[in-house]
């Protein structure tokens, strides 16, 4: 019995589909970046429509300049964790700036968004006394945070406050702490949560609410503070988690809160303590992007214009869309095979989107996940919409029964 035997069923399926289409959807190499929305792949220029670069800030001039300056001044890496030698003045300043932007008292910066959820959940809830309740469609980092915590974890139906309420009611009296975790916008389908209702139900039963706005930060709300700003419950959320790797166009993550006790995480959260802190370059880029989005709403306006254009065009083309209009526009495919071929067809037509298949997607669905950027030009979107138009024909013809 080899260690590798368990991978064989997945590997066999994956490699067969990869070989059939002659391209690896999970191993695309951007050989040369040509800006926020373009890259050379196998010698051909492709429109990037699967990036999470919602506000298009990866080449933002002020961020590039600040990043170069930070590397020159503070070096290429911190070579240590936040807990030891890896906290520089810039890390602290970014925590202060993020807290101020969001309107919370405290903020802790982690090395990635994944680690922010991992670090917050695993430290806040502990076995055997605490219970975590999570939305069934939660991101892997929420599931992994639960696993690392070891606390009893119960799933509630996706975006269903009633289902959460039933599970909170069932909990015995021996439970000490209750943590409810859910997201603002879900990354695969682009659907949004009833944040206000979920927070209310959590609080009704004495639970804390942790909201992950990774994909909605910078995108939703009057000032880009996320779905909880849109739902006017920003000050009710106990723990607000987010990432630098989407709208802030860097890498890193954070947890913000009005609870003074958030600071305890600095000496109890393993993903905070036992990994190197974000490099000066990452921090400088995120800080500059945060300044940019605090003072300039135009990217968000453009993002929504672009999203509406694509969503309307896809609706007209008759695609089976997974959610109402948002910057993530996912098209449901009939099967995994069809999804692989459709993804490849878009690549042939100069468009990169994300192929997503079960178990990484809800309801065993295979999808083509497109994410819109404010940096997409009219021409970029023409190329995208034309490629999808050709795909629609292909799906009613050659690829109909795949």
């Amino acid at each position: 019995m080899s260690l590798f035997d368990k991978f064989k069923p997945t590997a066999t399926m994956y490699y067969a589909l990869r070989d059939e289409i002659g391209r690896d959807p999970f191993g695309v190499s951007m050989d040369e970046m040509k800006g926020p929305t373009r890259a050379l792949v196998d010698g051909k220029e492709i429109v990037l429509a699967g990036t999470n670069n919602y506000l298009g800030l990866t080449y933002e001039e002020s961020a590039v300049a600040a990043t170069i300056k930070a590397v020159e001044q503070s070096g290429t890496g911190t070579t240590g964790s936040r807990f030891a030698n890896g906290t520089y003045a810039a890390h602290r300043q970014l925590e202060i700036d993020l807290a101020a932007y969001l309107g919370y008292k405290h903020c802790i910066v982690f090395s990635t968004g994944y680690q922010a959820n991992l670090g917050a959940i695993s430290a806040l809830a502990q076995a055997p006394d605490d219970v975590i309740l999570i939305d069934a469609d939660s991101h892997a980092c929420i599931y992994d945070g639960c696993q690392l915590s070891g606390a009893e974890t119960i799933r509630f139906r996706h975006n269903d406050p009633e289902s959460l309420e039933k599970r909170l009611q069932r909990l015995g009296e021996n439970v000490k702490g209750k943590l409810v975790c859910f997201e603002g916008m879900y990354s695969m389908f682009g659907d949004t949560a009833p944040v206000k209702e979920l927070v209310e139900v959590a609080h009704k039963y004495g639970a804390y609410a942790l909201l992950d706005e990774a994909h909605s930060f910078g995108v939703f709300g009057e000032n880009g503070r996320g779905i909880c700003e849109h739902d006017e419950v920003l000050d009710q959320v106990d723990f607000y988690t987010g990432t630098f790797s989407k709208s802030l166009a860097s890498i890193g993550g954070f947890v913000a809160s009005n609870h003074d006790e958030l600071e305890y995480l600095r000496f109890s959260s393993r993903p905070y303590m036992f990994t190197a802190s974000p490099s000066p370059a990452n921090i400088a880029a995120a800080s500059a992007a945060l300044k940019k989005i605090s003072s300039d709403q135009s990217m968000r306006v453009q993002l929504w214009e672009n999203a509406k254009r694509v969503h309307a065009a896809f609706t007209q083309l008759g695609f089976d869309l997974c959610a109402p209009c948002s910057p993530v526009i996912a098209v449901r495919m009939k099967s995994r095979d069809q999804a692989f071929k459709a993804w490849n067809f878009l690549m042939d037509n100069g468009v990169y989107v994300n192929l997503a298949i079960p178990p990484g997607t809800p309801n065993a669905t295979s999808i083509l996940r497109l994410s819109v950027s404010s940096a997409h030009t009219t021409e970029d979107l023409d190329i995208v919409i034309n490629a999808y138009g050709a795909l629609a024909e292909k799906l009613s013809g050659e690829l109909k029964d795949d």
Partner: protein
Amino acid sequence: MSSIQEDDDLVFRKICSLIEPLNDKGVKLTRETDLIADLEIDSVAVLDVVMDIEDNYDISIPVNTISEIKTIGELVDAIHAIKKEQT
């Protein structure tokens, strides 16, 4: 037949009815059927079946418990154990 056995049978049949739509290969369902290895249901689909079971019996089955369950029989046993504990 004792009432526990009767109940056991009912739970088993209820689970089978919830799993049947995912049983693409037409495997004969027994207590020994392995959900992932025999039925080739992915881990997320198992979680979703469990959600239906939870609502049907008005119990909560923690993810921690589900990850230890391999067969239909083990699922039946887990439901009994949790029903006893939560009611």
